[in-house]
């Protein structure tokens, strides 16, 4: 069993901290604005991560499970969707892959990355993987 790396060095600690901050914001957004929750949107782009093409469904599912295990506060579809939506900045509904792709690129550019099983991932795509792992195989 592999774990999400948490604080192997100062830079990674920063990632982790940012990641936790984002998580907390995501949960707050969910509680405060349930109406805006993406949970009911049926937005397939959100839970179909770009990573699937690169790593395949089995590996992405494993990464998602690792992410959820390491971050219990996001261990539900509701919290994950909210966190992804919050990470989008304007909390507007995420429409299609283009918007998500841009968000992921921004994550990398602005160092909103996490290490999951050693993979350097954008926090958004890590959450997508977690969402994917919640869906039936």
């Amino acid at each position: 069993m592999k774990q999400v790396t948490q604080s192997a060095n100062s830079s990674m600690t920063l990632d982790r901290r940012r990641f936790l901050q984002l998580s907390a914001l995501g949960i707050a957004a969910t509680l405060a604005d349930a109406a805006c929750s993406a949970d009911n949107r049926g937005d397939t782009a959100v839970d179909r991560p770009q990573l699937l093409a690169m790593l395949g469904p089995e590996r992405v599912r494993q990464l998602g499970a690792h992410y959820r295990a390491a971050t219990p506060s996001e261990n539900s579809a509701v919290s994950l969707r909210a966190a992804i939506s919050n990470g989008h900045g304007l909390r507007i509904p995420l429409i299609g892959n283009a918007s998500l792709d841009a968000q992921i690129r921004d994550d990398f550019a602005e160092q909103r990355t996490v290490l999951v099983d050693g993979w350097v991932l954008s926090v958004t795509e890590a959450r997508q993987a977690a969402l994917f792992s919640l869906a039936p195989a």
Partner: protein
Amino acid sequence: MLEGDLCIVGAGAAGITIARELANSRLKVLLLEGGGFDFDPQMQELYRGEIVGQPYYPLQAAALHYFGGTTNHWAGWCSTYEPIDFEKRDWVPHSGWPITRADLDPFYARAQKVLDLGPYKYDAADWKNGDADRVSLLSDSRVVWTKMWQFSPPTRFGTKYRDEIVNSPNVHLYTHANVVEVEANDELTAVRSVRIRTFDGKEYRARANVFGLEGNGASFIEDGASGQSSISADGRFIMFGSNANDLVGRYFMEHFEMPAGELALANPQTTKTKLYALDLAKGTPRGELALSPAAQRENRILNGTASVESGTYGEAVKSTFQFIDTTMLNAMRTWEKGGKKGPHPIAVALGATATAPPTKGPPRFYHLTTRQEQAPNPDSRVTLSAEKDALGMPRARLDWRVTPLDKRSMRTFYQLLGREMGRTDTGRVQIKDWLLSDDLTWPSFISGGWHHMGTTRMSADPKQGVVDANCKIHGLANLYIGGAAVYPTAGAVNPTLTLVALSLRLADHLKATV
């Protein structure tokens, strides 16, 4: 008694380069080589040493003790040190050379010819070779760039330059001439002669005005018990004077060469990786992803590169020391002596270990293997073993030690590389488990590249270095050192091109001063 104007001890890349430069000059040059013209197990056994500290490759297999030295089995990988490698970096203790990259540029250009390389060009754009697919990854990045390598055939100095040396009217080559002592004058301000010993117990002396010692980093040793320095030329340990500043033998450095990550391409159909492919048969220049100077400064880390080689995700990738074991070394020698018929033994081994690609079409997965400098560390050192060799000389005792900065640098590099790959949607990077653990723990397969550097480091300050900017030993008027042992820092890439460039520079200095 042999007598000359200049006595060069050791006929490897440095010794032969300097001797060739001085051939046909007015100087009478003595060139002393411990071995003969071929591999001899008895002679090679003199290189056996004791390993303590981090695991290391057997010393008697890492370097070769006959005419041509280690060029008799080197792989031919050549690239330049970058300007930042010569600078004093406040985040790298003991860094900084007394010369700059600009000082070395003209000699790099000359060294290209000595090593049978192409033109002195190391920009990726210079090596497109008319092929639109030979382009750089991450070309817009300020964090990562593509560092180019050229490949020597590889030039075997012992073969290629043998006749030139033997037939030179003023270079006098003596083989099986193991130097066992440097004899200084009474004031210990200059070297008077060197003492030579043979296996049958005979001794000779060579006297000259100036002496040049060639040696790799494992050969320069401080004897803590006696307080004397033991400097080896061509693997032999020879005593001279005091080592007041306690520098000789310290700062032993290697290049880390270890598998450290995986790359999954986002779009293998459109991403061009040809520039990074290794073609051992043709020796086509290739690129490696390298950390930019700006990123090194911002993150306060060491210089390093990562090779990009296609493979199957999850397959075992060996470190250099694991992959090129003594069996492989022997296979490579046999292949070369047999006229290089059939595929290269490394290509055969790679083919045997590779598993079938999971899909058709361009590969999606690539192995990333690190090549990184080691931070200078005074506690990483070579001392004298209590064991004596067949000539009665103490063997080397290598205590290779690494620092937290070494591992932190490597991990940070891969993090940065992962972010750049993601930012540009080129792909995703996975960092190996061993690299994510604490900064002090290294895996059993820790590996260098058989590059022994730093044990007679160069500095303008005698308290910081053994030799000055001209490779002359501080405090001795006429003793010079050629070889990678004078490097104060290791750079990210293999040392031979820089070693030959420095030897050419030293030869010019000797021509002007002797």
